């Protein structure tokens, strides 16, 4: 490591103030601080600081996504080739399909992040480490790479940098990418031919569970398959088991807020039970608890609704925010005629309302303070 440190230190002066490549300092620092925690000491405020930083938080989320990603890669192969193949064959097939998507997502996204950091003269933020991994996991595997690249550009530029960068965005950037692709390239984002790799060419039926239900057809996946994730769908969304492993890490580390996860499940359960009572079509009769296992519900609640930047910031707000996401996700899923899934829309919608929820939660605190003042004025 000494060699690496020495090399970095050797080139550092080139990027210092007044030096030749001063403008590119954010890019150099981005790489430097990824390799080494900087030698900066405190200069105001508390003299000692907690060992945690934003990099550690973001990397924890990336780690939590790894089980889901690995399973997703295997499942790409399994959905295309079916039984009778070795694990490595299936995984290898999936890897060839998936890792180019991941490379495009990180390459385009991080490239833009560095560019904006240089243009604005601020440090590179770590937010995209997570976003870059989320984007390919919520896309159908057959999405052409150039569409993915355009969606990433839209998400980073319009979804994030237009608002001021990481921490300032209103919507979850990964979902912005998905929503953009969904509306711009609808044929590649929905239907029964996109969820299994090459299904259009091979003529394999690749309908999702929700798609089958929406068409009033009987589903042929067992509950076990749905839980384990042996079903078609976006790359990362299918395995509830793997998502739960990720959730366990996020809750253990406290990185994801348990209030959002719990309340969103409660919201979905309430909506699901209402539909079960009405039971007007296949989507409504689908047992409420099975709604939690299929589609993007589990992935969305664990990895996207919990994004602290776009969620409600107050603890009370988080309860309301999570509950409504779960509630709306199932409602949109059942009522949306064109596309039988509502998780993306529900989260984006609540992203927009999160500041409003916080406003009312904080208003209660302000009111308490004002009441105290009035009491004293009377006395």
């Amino acid at each position: 490591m000494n060699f690496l440190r020495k090399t970095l230190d050797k080139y550092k002066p080139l990027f210092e103030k007044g030096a030749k490549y001063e403008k590119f300092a954010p890019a150099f620092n981005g790489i430097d601080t990824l390799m080494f925690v900087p030698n900066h000491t405190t200069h105001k405020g508390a003299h000692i600081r907690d060992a945690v930083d934003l990099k550690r938080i973001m990397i924890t989320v990336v780690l939590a996504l790894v089980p889901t990603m690995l399973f997703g890669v295997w499942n790409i192969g399994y959905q295309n080739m079916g039984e009778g193949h070795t694990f490595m064959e299936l995984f290898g097939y999936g890897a060839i399909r998936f890792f180019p998507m991941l490379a495009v997502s990180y390459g385009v996204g991080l490239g833009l992040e560095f560019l904006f950091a240089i243009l604005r003269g601020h440090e590179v933020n770590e937010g995209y480490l997570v976003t870059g991994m989320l984007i390919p996991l919520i896309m159908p595997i057959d999405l052409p790479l150039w569409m993915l690249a355009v969606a990433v550009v839209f998400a980073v530029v319009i979804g994030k940098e237009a608002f001021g960068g990481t921490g300032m965005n209103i919507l979850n950037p990964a979902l912005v990418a998905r929503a953009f692709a969904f509306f711009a390239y609808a044929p590649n984002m929905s239907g029964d031919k996109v969820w299994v790799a090459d299904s259009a060419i091979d003529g394999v039926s690749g309908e999702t569970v929700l798609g089958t239900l929406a068409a009033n057809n009987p589903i042929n996946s067992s509950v076990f398959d749905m839980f384990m994730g042996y079903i078609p769908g976006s790359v990362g969304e299918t395995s509830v088991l793997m998502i739960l492993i990720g959730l366990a890490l996020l809750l253990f580390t406290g990185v994801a807020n348990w209030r959002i996860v719990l309340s969103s499940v409660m919201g979905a359960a309430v909506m699901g039970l209402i539909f079960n009572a009405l039971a007007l079509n296949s989507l409504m009769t689908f047992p409420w608890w099975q709604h939690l296992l299929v589609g993007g519900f589990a992935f969305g609640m664990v990895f996207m609704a919990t994004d602290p930047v776009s969620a409600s910031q107050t603890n009370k707000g988080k309860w309301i925010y999570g509950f409504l996401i779960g509630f709306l996700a199932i409602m949109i899923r059942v009522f949306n005629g064109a596309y039988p899934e509502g998780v993306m829309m529900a989260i984006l919608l609540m992203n927009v309302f999160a500041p409003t929820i916080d406003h009312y939660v904080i208003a209660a605190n302000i009111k308490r303070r004002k009441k105290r003042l009035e009491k004293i004025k009377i006395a």
Partner: protein
Amino acid sequence: MSKDIRIKKGLDIKLKGKATENVVTVPSSGIFSIRPTDFHGVVPKLTVKVGDKVMAGDTLFYSKQNEAIKFSSPVSGEVLEITRGEKRKVLSIEIQASKDQSSKDFGKTLPTKTTREEVLEKLLSSGCWAFINQRPYDTLANPSDTPKAIFVSSFDTNPLAIDYGYALKERKEDFQTGIDVLNKLTKTVHLSLDANTSSFFDSIDNVELHKVTGIHPAGNVGIQISEIDPINQGEKVWTVNPQDVVTIGALFNTGNYNATRTVALVGSGVLSPSYIKVTSGQSIGSIVSGKLTDVENRIIEGSVLNGRVLLNDSYIGQQTNTISVIPEGREHRFMGWMPFVANGNHSASRTSFSWLFSKKEYEPNTNMNGEERAMVVTGDMEKVMPLDIYPMQLLKAILAGDIEKMENLGIYEVAPEDFSLIDYTSSSKVEAQDIIRQGLDIMIKEVG
């Protein structure tokens, strides 16, 4: 009447280098120094010039904003130098101490037998007024105000902080007199006690006692005020540190301004941490010489969470109680951001296993452990903020300069030290204390 207070939100940080219970004496430093910049917002007007002879208690300068507020010399001797900075701003006044110390006599008086005006006059003329702080705004108190209450916290829960019960155990009489003095200035004096230990503070009269349990910042007077009698818009309360109550008491008992104090010299940079008898304005070199480890250390006046840096050739201030010494942290750490790897570095976040070992005594250095970023993680500030306040929203309102929002969100109830744990735990490395100070200064300027 005694109310019990329990603080659940916060964080105790256990560090290596707690002071053992013995008091060490150190030789006097020859030169003493007073820094007007220690008193936030005070513009000094000098009353002495180089070569003047002064006694302990003689006025060195007064506040331009309020000429009644005077600041005194801690020792007798000769004014050696007056250091000025930009725009001739007075940075410090150095005094060469004389061999035989003499103090100005302000006269012995029983506070119970004096009027409020006489008490005020004595505090102001002796320079002891500088020990009385005001909230809101965390500044010096204004003698023309009558505060709704005065708060004294008898214990400090900051990491490695001084134990007042031990340091002041022989000064109970002076402390009681000091409390009687404060009673002349307001209706109620609140004294809060650490419910888990007993000390002479338990038997102090003429105060409303409050037993406090819980984790840091349980000892901070800010959280105690909010639990006992929160500050509303337009109200003022005063706070005085226990050691300063003793100095005020001694002024009335002996007639002299006695600037000697007992401080705790603590931290992993100190070879054998202990209590030390010092005089305000004494050079730090004379206090720590031969007592520190052989690495690059940072000397901090106050706690590691909210003290200020003392350079090696500088002098301690008038309100010092703890001197913390910890190593500087100028090392790069390879991939030090990996979760669950460097568990020897304390973290309140569960992305490191160190939270499982909260009893271990940690040895942190001054490394930032990361770089400043936009505020991303939510809910973490609330975990260490026992005040009924939304800390992140208040910080953002200050950064935006939105005065109405700051008022609404409770700027009058906070002081920078109340945000020191947020400085510490923030994963975005937010300089919360600095932002709060800015916010308070905006309020002083715009609202007053």
